[in-house]
């Protein structure tokens, strides 16, 4: 019965300022969101041929022009929306599906748990990328299907994190109390255990968002999911890749840079959130 001092009282306010990466990450994402929302009003149409092809970066065309003469910066800005929205959608979908599976598996335990965990093991044996491709090929190549396929390919960390927490939460007395109050297992699992087990998964969300963007871009590069002439970073990298050898480096470099910055910012946020948890 020793009195415990709540952590909130103990942590000095100064420590909170010493988390530059979090602010950098949030800042970058904030800028991207603004740019993605407002940018299309100010930059050229992504399909417009505004200049001769293969112009290097200049004051007029910050990222240069591509093989058709389209402004790469304009296309990159238009692509922000697609990549971010897809990334977030996939991550949220993966979390929803993964958490539901995880909490049921963790709470029920026994055979259900065994089967589910072996199934997840099988899922994890495939690189996410390959798995998404296989799924897309089987269910058809469209943007909604892309989101579903990528989500399914990434449920594993959510399943494991939520299941692990559910395993310990289910031993706690409030779970027994809910049963005594008349709750069936479904209600106990989703109304009581899940909200108390979701925290570690929520942290994983930003990281999975980053991976999703990489996967979307990667698949587009391979011609799966999103196709030209849609302006999307992966597509643009694909279109520009061949030009690296012929000297027009900017056609692939800048879209690639956008991917890198976005994913990095998301990881900064995710790492800081994860580091907070003891």
């Amino acid at each position, binding site marked *: *019965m020793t*009195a415990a*001092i709540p952590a909130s*009282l103990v*942590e000095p306010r100064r420590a909170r300022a010493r988390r530059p990466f979090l602010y950098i990450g949030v800042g970058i994402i904030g800028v991207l969101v603004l740019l993605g929302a407002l940018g299309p009003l100010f930059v050229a149409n992504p399909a417009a041929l505004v200049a001769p092809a293969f112009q290097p970066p200049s004051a007029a065309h910050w990222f240069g022009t591509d093989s058709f003469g389209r402004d790469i910066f304009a296309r990159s800005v238009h692509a922000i929306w697609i990549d971010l929205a897809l990334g977030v959608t996939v991550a949220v979908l993966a979390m929803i599906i993964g958490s539901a599976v995880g909490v049921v598996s963790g709470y029920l335990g026994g055979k259900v748990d065994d089967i589910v965990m072996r199934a997840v093991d099988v899922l994890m044996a495939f690189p996410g990328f390959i798995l998404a491709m296989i799924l897309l090929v089987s269910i058809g190549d469209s943007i909604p299907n892309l989101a579903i396929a990528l989500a399914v390919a990434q449920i594993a960390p959510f399943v494991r994190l939520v299941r692990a927490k559910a395993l310990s939460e289910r031993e706690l007395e409030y779970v027994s109390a809910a049963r005594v109050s008349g709750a069936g297992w479904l209600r106990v699992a989703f109304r009581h255990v899940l909200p108390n087990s979701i925290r570690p998964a929520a942290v994983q969300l930003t990281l999975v968002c980053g991976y999703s963007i990489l996967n979307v871009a990667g698949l587009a590069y391979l011609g799966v999911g999103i196709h030209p002439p849609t302006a999307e970073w992966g597509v643009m990298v694909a279109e520009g890749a061949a030009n690296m050898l012929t000297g027009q480096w900017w056609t692939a470099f800048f879209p690639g840079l956008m991917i890198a910055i976005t994913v990095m910012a998301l990881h900064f946020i995710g790492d800081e959130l994860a580091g907070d948890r003891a």
Partner: protein
Amino acid sequence: MSRLSIQGLTVEVAASGARILDDVSLEIAPGEIVGLVGESGSGKSMTSLATMGILPPGIRQTAGRFLVDGVDVTAQRQRSVESRFAMIFQNPRDSLNPLMRVGQQIARMVALHQGLDRRAAQAAAVELLGRVHIASPEQTARAYPHQLSGGMCQRVMVAMALACRPSLLIADEPTTALDVTVQAQILDLIVELTEQTGCGVLLVTHDLGVVAETCDRVNVLYRGDLVESGPTAEVFSAPQHEYTRYLLEAGRELEVDDGAA
């Protein structure tokens, strides 16, 4: 001359300045068992941690002195080692290293304080286990904490405390997590060893019954303030402060009316 004299101890939360202990003073004579009683939030555990010099991060001692046999030891960096304070905690199993055999843990303490070599320290550890009335000391010394019951773990803690030939033993709720029959045995053990070694004991507890049966003097802590202090019999029969009266009444409400007491 008191063995331990705490004078004007004030402990605060570093960030907010909230006071956990406010100008607390108490004395412990050699061979005396002094109780420190209070409910949760009274600051009683902080008193023991402050004395040992192991306040948690974010909590600071902002005033107060510690005197051992009249000598001011407040400035010592490793007060517990240099002045030979030993402490046993509420959850004995949590205080023991789960990956190390208990005999080895005691031997380490012995080696640290008595400077013996490995073999001599091991032998001393077994002897200490015997002193705390553990039935088969050699066998127990080879056991891991999770193989022992709560009561036996607490005895191991007491043995470790003895390893430094303590001048002061602080027992922070040593029996709260134990079954009542085991509680009685641990308290008997503490009393016996106090009589043998003449060390002072600060017994921190919320249980007035424990205080009544083992403590020579008692101090009552309420929200960081020391509200009453005196010989146990006096405080129990004629409490001065209303909080003390409140605690005594609440405790007596539930007393077994068995006619024998």
